């Protein structure tokens, strides 16, 4: 059976949903970051599939943009987590609730 762009869309959707579930359910902040990366990569996959489907190179260029943004965001986010760890000595998201008041 040939592999249709439809299959890529399903795969991308599945990865995206797994990523969302991970963000919502996991307690460890670093794991949550990994799930965010998973979501971004799912979108990347979708973009590439569409690029092949509509014979448009612009989508692949957009993938590069997304990768750059993801990298920058990870850098900043990990720095924040390191700072928090120095205070609370834990990366459990349930303890990081200083935003309450």
């Amino acid at each position, binding site marked *: 059976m040939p592999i249709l762009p439809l299959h890529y869309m399903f795969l991308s959707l599945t990865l995206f949903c797994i990523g*969302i579930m991970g*963000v*919502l359910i996991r*307690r460890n902040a670093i794991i949550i970051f990994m799930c965010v990366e998973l979501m971004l990569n799912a979108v990347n996959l979708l973009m590439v599939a569409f690029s092949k489907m509509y014979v448009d190179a612009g989508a692949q260029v957009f993938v590069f943009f997304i990768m750059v943004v993801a990298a920058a965001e990870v850098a900043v986010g990990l720095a924040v987590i390191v700072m928090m760890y120095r205070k609370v000595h834990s990366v459990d*998201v*349930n303890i*990081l*609730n*200083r*935003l*309450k*008041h």
Partner: protein
Amino acid sequence: MTQLVYLIPLFPLIGFLINGLGWRTIPKTAAGVIGSLAILASFVVSVGIFFEVNSPSFHGPVLVHLFDFIQTGKLYIPFTFQVDALSTLFLLIITGVGFLIHVYSTSYMHHDEGMVKYFAFLNLFVFSMLLLVLGANYLVMFIGWEGVGLCSYLLIGFWFKNRDYTNAAKKAFVMNRIGDLGFLVGMMMILFNYGTLSYGEFFGKLGTTPGALGDNTYNWIAICLFIGAIGKSAQIPLYTWLPDAMAGPTPVSALIHAATMVTAGIYMIARSSVLYNLAPFTLHIVAIIGLATAIFAATVAIKQYDIKKVLAYSTVSQLGFMFLALGVGAYTTAVFHVMTHAFFKALLFLGSGSVIHAMGGEQDIRLMGGLGKKMRVTQITFLIGCLAISGIPGFSGFFSKDEILAATYAHDPILYYMALAAAMMTAFYMFRLYFLTFTGTFRGTHDQEHHLHESPSAMTIPLIVLAILSVVGGYVGLPAVISEHHALASYLSPVVSNASEHHMAAGTEWLLMGLSSGLSVVMIIYAFTANKVPSFAPNTGLAKLLENKWYVDEIYDAIIVRPLAALSGLLDKFVEKSGIDGIVNGVGKGVRYGSDRIRMLQSGQVGFYIFVMVLGMVALFAITFFGVKL
């Protein structure tokens, strides 16, 4: 000189401002002098204006325009004074008697710490009363009308630390207000139907243009204005404030509740004689109410033991006589009786003040007796006042009261006999008061007996002046059988004219005069014999009913005051506390509850925030791709 009429109310107003603003700093004697001089100045100007009005070259009412008071759209009401025979006569009465009472007060109130405030209030009162009689339209009259009601409240409750006195002041003001509602409705009807409140314009339009209610318009307007007079001049059913108003200082009772304020109703009806002549049904009601009040109050006065209460009920009764005169169409006669009544009633009140002063504050006549020996001047002047009010020939009261009785007889003999009964009772209770107070043996305590003395000249000289006026004041209105010329009637005729000139046979007039005089003398002798050896056993039966004023106050309390209070309590519980407070507090509670719930969103947990973000994304997705309408 008539152009200077604005000075007349101006002097008392200045007196009020000086005494009122400086009541902490001005010394007592100075306050008395300022107050009295202000009224004296007004009196001098009034006399000047009187001579000008009385001269043959005076034509028509003079209108002195001060400023435009109300000017909106089609409504134009100027602040104008009207100088004519009627207003000038009242000016003389108010400023003349007012001046004597001010002089009297300088001595009577000398030991009172609030004397400066007292003179401020008195001047304010005279100012308001002058506005009332000088106004050229009903609105300026109403300003004065309300002003005298206010000053009555201030002066009755003058010794404000006593709860009973302040209650009496509130009662007077509230009852006045009830009447004022009628007056306001009457004014609004006049404005609505005729577009103007000025006397001249209004009376000119009467009789030509029928009002909105057709033929009954005049009656309705007249009745509404009369309701105002009922409240102000203490007629049935709004009279109970006047006996309670005796809580105020005695000169106040003399000025306000004898000579001036209570006569405002009579002035108003006399001024509106053109209107009332077109409303015969209302005149009938006026006469009936006046007669009923005259008889009713006289019956109560027979069994009162407080010297001022007797005089208070006497005032209510005499006011009833004046309204009876108005009701039978004899307007000038009513004004005549206003004048003579001002003289002798002020005299009687000031005399009673002299007695109270000598008795050290005691007002119960059961504890008096034989005061004549120690207080000759007071006794003689009081006797003159009693003779005048009883209608003994030669004194002023005889001329005015007999004119009322004659006019009543010409109108309806049945009313005459009832009025005659009231006149007989007047003679009886006044002389009962005189004999119990000034003759016989003293019934009070030993200390009081030592304290008895004649009053200082500042108090006795006004008494003497008023006594002279009570004697000679009647000669301006000689009856037709004695003299062709009735000076007062011809003086007032350009402004006020009686409804119909009844010409009775000379014989009938002499008969009526003799009848009333004779019966008065009979009652005086009866009063003398009944009180030679007074016994003050507790009253039973009819006497008890009279002593307790026919329980009218208690009836009012049960029928009107208690239900109103209960209604207020109900409204307070169900509408105020549960309803309005419930809504206001409820809004507050609701906001608090809602905010408590919404506060839960701020859990501080990052996971929850991300979850909400995802929810938002899903919603956006649904809207964009499936067109779910918001």
